[in-house]
């Protein structure tokens, strides 16, 4: 697990495409043992799927890297883009972009390359929380960010006519995976689909190529991480203490695990984007970004998704607080886990609320980034 932390940091700090690629590959292999941790048949199956998808993505990325190097003789990221418009023909540019986009799209769980993520939920819950809600998938999204702003430049992507397809793929992912989440009864899988949809919020934000869009996307990277880890930790607590996996078994769990369920509820309304949680702030900036890009329609996509988010998360909260307890947990007195498991959840949930009111701390960094990116 510690190794993976180093690798993820490596991805974040890599300054050229090759280093980036190396760490990116490491991440695949580093997280594989965690996916199959339980060593059951399903987990091996899921591990295989994960590996296959990732390697497929990696192959595409390698192809892209070679093409970029062949065209420009450098792989160092720079804010104006490695590939300049005068160096390559648009067709080649388009192909390189698509190869990269789908390569990175595997980890970012962009439709139709998302299906490894729900399967990988067989991993232990903390693993799901850290890697499949944050580290792995966020490196995919981060890679797409690098791709759009550092390998290519926003102008180039626009002239290639690829902004619209990216926006559409992201919107499609948002809506479809939210719909899948609504019908998913296994709670971890439901959260996995939710992750897929939220990741595409971020891709969408980047693809607007407008200041507020990038701000929203970067903010949402932080905010979604906080909220989703909170949700996964809460679910982990519930699974550990009761062994319940299905949404409709969770009736009355809030009466036995009040703190866990309260944090879960807070994170849920954060993900829906209700003020004053941090989810609202990123939704605000994303919507502004959409308008700056001259597109009203993506606000509606965000709104539909928010409604669907409410439809798949709030019933869990409602069940847990207001339904009669199921027989399994009726006679237990207190199911709340030990303090070590509660404190992180409380801190994370508190942080989400705090960032809803004072988002200026991450915002300072983000504004600098945006300044650098869009000046050029």
């Amino acid at each position: 697990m510690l190794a993976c932390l180093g690798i993820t940091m490596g991805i974040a700090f890599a300054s050229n495409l090759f280093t980036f690629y190396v760490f990116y590959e490491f991440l695949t292999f580093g997280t594989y043992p965690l996916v199959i941790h339980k060593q059951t048949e399903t987990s091996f199956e899921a591990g295989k799927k994960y590996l296959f998808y990732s390697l497929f993505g990696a192959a595409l990325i390698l192809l892209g890297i070679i093409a970029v190097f062949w065209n420009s003789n450098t792989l160092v990221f720079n804010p104006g883009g490695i590939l300049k418009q005068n160096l390559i023909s648009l067709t080649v540019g388009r192909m390189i972009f698509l190869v990269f986009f789908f390569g990175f799209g595997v980890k970012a769980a962009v439709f139709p390359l998302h299906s490894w993520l729900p399967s990988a939920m067989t991993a232990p819950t903390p693993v799901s929380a850290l890697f499949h809600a944050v580290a792995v998938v966020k490196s995919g999204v981060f890679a797409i960010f690098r791709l759009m702003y550092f390998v290519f430049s926003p102008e180039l992507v626009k002239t290639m006519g690829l902004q619209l397809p990216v926006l559409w793929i992201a919107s499609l992912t948002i809506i479809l995976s939210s719909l899948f989440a609504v019908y998913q009864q296994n709670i971890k899988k439901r959260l996995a689909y939710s992750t897929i949809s939220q990741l595409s919020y971020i891709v969408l934000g980047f693809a607007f190529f407008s200041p507020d869009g990038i701000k929203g996307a970067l903010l949402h990277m932080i905010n979604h991480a906080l909220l989703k880890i909170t949700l996964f930790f809460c679910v982990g607590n519930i699974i550990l203490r009761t062994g319940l996996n299905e949404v409709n078994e969770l009736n009355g769990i809030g009466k036995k695990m009040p703190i866990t369920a309260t944090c879960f509820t807070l994170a849920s309304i954060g993900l829906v984007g209700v003020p004053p949680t941090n989810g609202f702030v990123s939704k605000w900036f994303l919507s502004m970004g959409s308008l700056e890009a001259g597109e009203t329609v993506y606000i509606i996509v965000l709104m539909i998704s928010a409604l669907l988010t409410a439809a798949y998360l709030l019933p869990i909260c409602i069940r847990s607080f207001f339904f009669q307890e199921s027989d399994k947990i009726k006679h237990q007195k207190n199911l709340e886990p030990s303090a070590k498991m509660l404190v992180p959840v409380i801190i994370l949930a508190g942080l989400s609320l705090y960032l809803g009111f004072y988002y200026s701390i991450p915002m300072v960094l983000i504004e600098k980034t945006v300044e650098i990116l869009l000046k050029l």
Partner: protein
Amino acid sequence: MQTIFLSTSIIVLPLIIAPIVYFSYQKKSSFLLKILILCPLAIAFLNVLILFPIILRHKLVAFRFDFIFPHGISIYINELSLIMGFITTTLWLLVTFYSFDYMAGKNNLNRYYSFLLVSFTGCVGVAFAGNLLTQFLFFEIASLVPYILIIHDGKPHTITAANKYLYMCLMASLALFFSVVYTYFLTDTLEFAELKNLAKQGIVLPTSIFVSFILGYATKAGLFPLHIWLPDAYPVAPSPFGSLSSGIMIKVGIFGIFKLFFEIYDFNLINQLGWGTVLQVIAGITILLGSAMALNEKNLKKLLAYSSISQMGYILLGTSLLNNRALLGAVFHLFSHSFAKGTLFLCAGAIKQKTGNLNIDNMKGLGYKMPITMACFTISALSMIGIPPLSGFVSKWYLGLGCLDASMPLYLIILLVSSLMNAIYFLPITINAFFTSETQKKFTINEVPFKMLFSIVSLTFGTILGGVFRTPILILAKTAAKKLLI
């Protein structure tokens, strides 16, 4: 400085007390804790009273905290917000006091009282908000937190009704979110004062913003055809909720429409574009439909719910006629309806508690056993019908004059028809309660406990005072109407 302190404490104190109540309230709770619950509400009530002379001297309270939340928390109190603030604090204080007896012995009271306080902040915050985003924040609190009050008893059909409310509210808030973002994008400001200036300069926001605002607010206000959550939610929720919701929460939606008409858009423009007419028609339908549905309703709480829908139509009508006297009627009706309907719901709660039944056919002879409750019920019902000298008459008088000022006698007729229907569904209840001799021995009950009775009587007193005297409320309403139409 003093006013900043006063208005901030109204909003912030309940939020501080709510978690304390949540963690310390027990089933057999001490006297001190009940005082603690009442404290922020009482302070809020006093603060509003102190603000009265300040606002009457035409001083506005406006300030903002820039350091939190996107675009800051901005507070702006004018005459209209103070009227909302006054009814909100009064009703909340009395209803909470009423709840001490009504809810006694029920489960989850810590949750009930703490979220009651939080939703107070939401409602009063909408009234005092000075920019769109602050208003949106409090609007969310005012619509989502009451969900916990509706679902209180946790029975399956309660949950169904409450979920309907929840999802409708979420849709409403998304519609509002769209409008708020879009408005900010186009005008680069969210402050009501600046938006009003822009509107005066002739800057027109697109129709989609207007429609989406109306959809959001109308859902909350229970206007046709978005009223469908209302008759379901009221009967299943505890009676104090009905009182607060009819009295205040749905008016929060109406208050948003006031802001929309007069501070985000220019009202002349709304008239020219024909939106005034469209909304008048919607108001007319809401009035008639609400009253008609109430006519053959047997469940008292449902009856009151339909009656509330029709009364919201009155206020929307007064607003969309866009002239001085109609607007005065609408603003004053905020006050008279909230007091009268608040009382009616509290009486319904008293009846429910004593007889366990809300069927209006079972209330024959009830006046002999619960004379004070039923007398207050009668007075409030008369105010709803619009009988002088009660405050409902004052609002209806100005609304009627407004209809004629706008040369729309049709709407006057609708008002009168609706009054007639009000009489048809309210009066049999009181007549049966007092003037039947046959079943008076059926009940072996007596009057409700003191706290409930006190709240009911005080609110009725307010209804009478508002009609008999030229109260500060009327003066404020007059200034408010005049200022909105500048």
